[in-house]
C-alpha cells in the first residue's frame, strides 16, 4: 500500500517536473523559432543561446505580487490557474513514453486524457468569470464554445483509431503500430483508407483544443487585450502559461501515440523513448510554425470549420471504417 502511494507521488513529481521543464523550454523554443521566422535572433543574451531566459522569467514571475482585482470572485480567481495546470499534469501520468516508461498504465487511457482535457475549458471559464472583466468573460465564453465544438471531431477520430486497434489502452495502441512506419495509423490501411485525413483533423483539433493560433480566440490579444487571463499577473499567469504548454505536449503525445506509432522507429530499429520525444517535438515545432504564419480565425469561422467540415468528414470516416472493419 505504502509502496503504491510512494509510486504515485514519485510519478506525480516527475510529471510536474517534466511539465515545468517542458513549458519553460518550449517558451524558449517558441520565442527563438518565432524570432527566426521573423529574421531576428530572439532571446540570446542570458546564457548560451539565451538558455537561461526561461528560469529567469520564472524568477521574475514568482517575485511579482499576486494581485486580485477588486470585485473579483476570489475563490474562482485563485482556483482557475491551478485548474488549468493540474489536469495537464494528471494526463502525463497515463502517457506511455515507451514500452517501459509510463507512470501508470490504464486500460482506458484515451478516455482519461479526454476527460482531463475537458477540464481545461472549466479553468478558462472560471478565470474569465472570476476576474469580473468584460473582456475576460467574452474570451472565456468563446473559448468554452470552441473547446466543446472541437472535442467532438477529436473524439470521433480517436474512436476511429480505437476501433481499428480494438483497445483504449494507449500502450496497446502504440504496440499495435510497431514494426516500421507502414504500420502506423497515419497511413491508409484496408480497414480505414481515410486515415491521413483523420490525422489532419486530429491535428487541427488539438490546435484548437490547446487554444493555439490560429484558434487562440480565448486570448485574441489584439481584440480582447489578453483574453481570459487579462487580470492575471505573477505566478497565476505563469500557471496558465505552463498549463498551455503542458497541454500542447499532451496534444502532441496523443497524436504521436494514436497516429505516429508512439515510440516505434520508422525503420524498425532501436524503438525507444527517443523516437517518441523526437516525434512530439517535431509536432510541437509544427505548432509553433503554424502559430507564427497565420492570422487568427473568427469565432464563426472556427465553429463553421468544426461543424461543417471536420465533424461531417470525421463522422463519414468513422462510418466507413466501421463498415470496412466488418468486411475485412
Amino acid at each position: 500500500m505504502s509502496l503504491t502511494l510512494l509510486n504515485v507521488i514519485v510519478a506525480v513529481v516527475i510529471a510536474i517536473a517534466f511539465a515545468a521543464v517542458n513549458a519553460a523550454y518550449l517558451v524558449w523554443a517558441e520565442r527563438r523559432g518565432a524570432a527566426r521566422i521573423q529574421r531576428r535572433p530572439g532571446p540570446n543574451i542570458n546564457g548560451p543561446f539565451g538558455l537561461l531566459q526561461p528560469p529567469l522569467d520564472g524568477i521574475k514571475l514568482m517575485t511579482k505580487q499576486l494581485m486580485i482585482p477588486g470585485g473579483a470572485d476570489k475563490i474562482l480567481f485563485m482556483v482557475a490557474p491551478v485548474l488549468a495546470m493540474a489536469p495537464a499534469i494528471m494526463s502525463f501520468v497515463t502517457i506511455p513514453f515507451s514500452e517501459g516508461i509510463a507512470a501508470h498504465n490504464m486500460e482506458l487511457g484515451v478516455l482519461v486524457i479526454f476527460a482531463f482535457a475537458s477540464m481545461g475549458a472549466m479553468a478558462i471559464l472560471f478565470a474569465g468569470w472570476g476576474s469580473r472583466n468584460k473582456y475576460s468573460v467574452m474570451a472565456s465564453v468563446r473559448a468554452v464554445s470552441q473547446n466543446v465544438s472541437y472535442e467532438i471531431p477529436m473524439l470521433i477520430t480517436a474512436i476511429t483509431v480505437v476501433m481499428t486497434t480494438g483497445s483504449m489502452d494507449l500502450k496497446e495502441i502504440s504496440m499495435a503500430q510497431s514494426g516500421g512506419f507502414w504500420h502506423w495509423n497515419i497511413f491508409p490501411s484496408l480497414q480505414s483508407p481515410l486515415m491521413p485525413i483523420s490525422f489532419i483533423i486530429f491535428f487541427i483539433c488539438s490546435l484548437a483544443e490547446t487554444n493555439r493560433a490560429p484558434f487562440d480566440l480565448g486570448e485574441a490579444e489584439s481584440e480582447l487585450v489578453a483574453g481570459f487571463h487579462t487580470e492575471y499577473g505573477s505566478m497565476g499567469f505563469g500557471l496558465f502559461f505552463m498549463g498551455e504548454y503542458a497541454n500542447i505536449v499532451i496534444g502532441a503525445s496523443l497524436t504521436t501515440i494514436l497516429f505516429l506509432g508512439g515510440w516505434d522507429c520508422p525503420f524498425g530499429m532501436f524503438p525507444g523513448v527517443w523516437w517518441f520525444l523526437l516525434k512530439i517535438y517535431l509536432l510541437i515545432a509544427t505548432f509553433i510554425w503554424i502559430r507564427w504564419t497565420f492570422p487568427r480565425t473568427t469565432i464563426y469561422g472556427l465553429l463553421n470549420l468544426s461543424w461543417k467540415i471536420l465533424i461531417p468528414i470525421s463522422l463519414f470516416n468513422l462510418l466507413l471504417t466501421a463498415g470496412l472493419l466488418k468486411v475485412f
Partner: protein
Amino acid sequence: MGGYFSDIFYGSKSLLIGMGITFREFFKPTVTVQYPYQTLKMSARFRGHIELIADKEGKPKCVVCGMCERACPSGCITLGSISIEIEVDGKIKKKKVLSKYDLDFTKCSLCGQCVENCNFGALEFSKEYNLASTRKEDFHFNLLKRLEERNT
C-alpha cells in the same frame, strides 16, 4: 457541394503556401542590429541636437546675432552675451562675445531652422542619438560648456 470541396482544397493550398514562405524565412540570416552591443553609424545628414562650431582658436564662431533664437519655433534657445574690449590695429573696439548658449532640448523639434538661419555657420547638428535620462534637467544643454569639453 463542388464549391464546398474546392473551398477546402484551395484553402488548404493557400495555408501550405504560407507555411512554405515562413519556412524559407526561417533559414534566412537575421537582419537586426543587437543594439547596445552594436550601433549604427549615423548618416551624414542626421539631425541630432545642435552644437556650436568652434573657429580655429577653439572659440565659438557665433557672433551673437540672435537669428537662431528668433527663428526657433519652440523657443528653446537662450543666448547671453558680454561686451569685451579688444585691440584691433591699435584701436580699442567693443565686441560682443557669447557668454551663454543654452538649449532646452526637451522642447526642441529638431527642425533645423536655427542652423539654416545662422548666416555665420556657427551651428551644426550633433550625431548623438543615445540620449536618455530620467531627469528633465539633463536635457538643458549648456552648449558653450560642451564646446569647451570637446576642445579639451
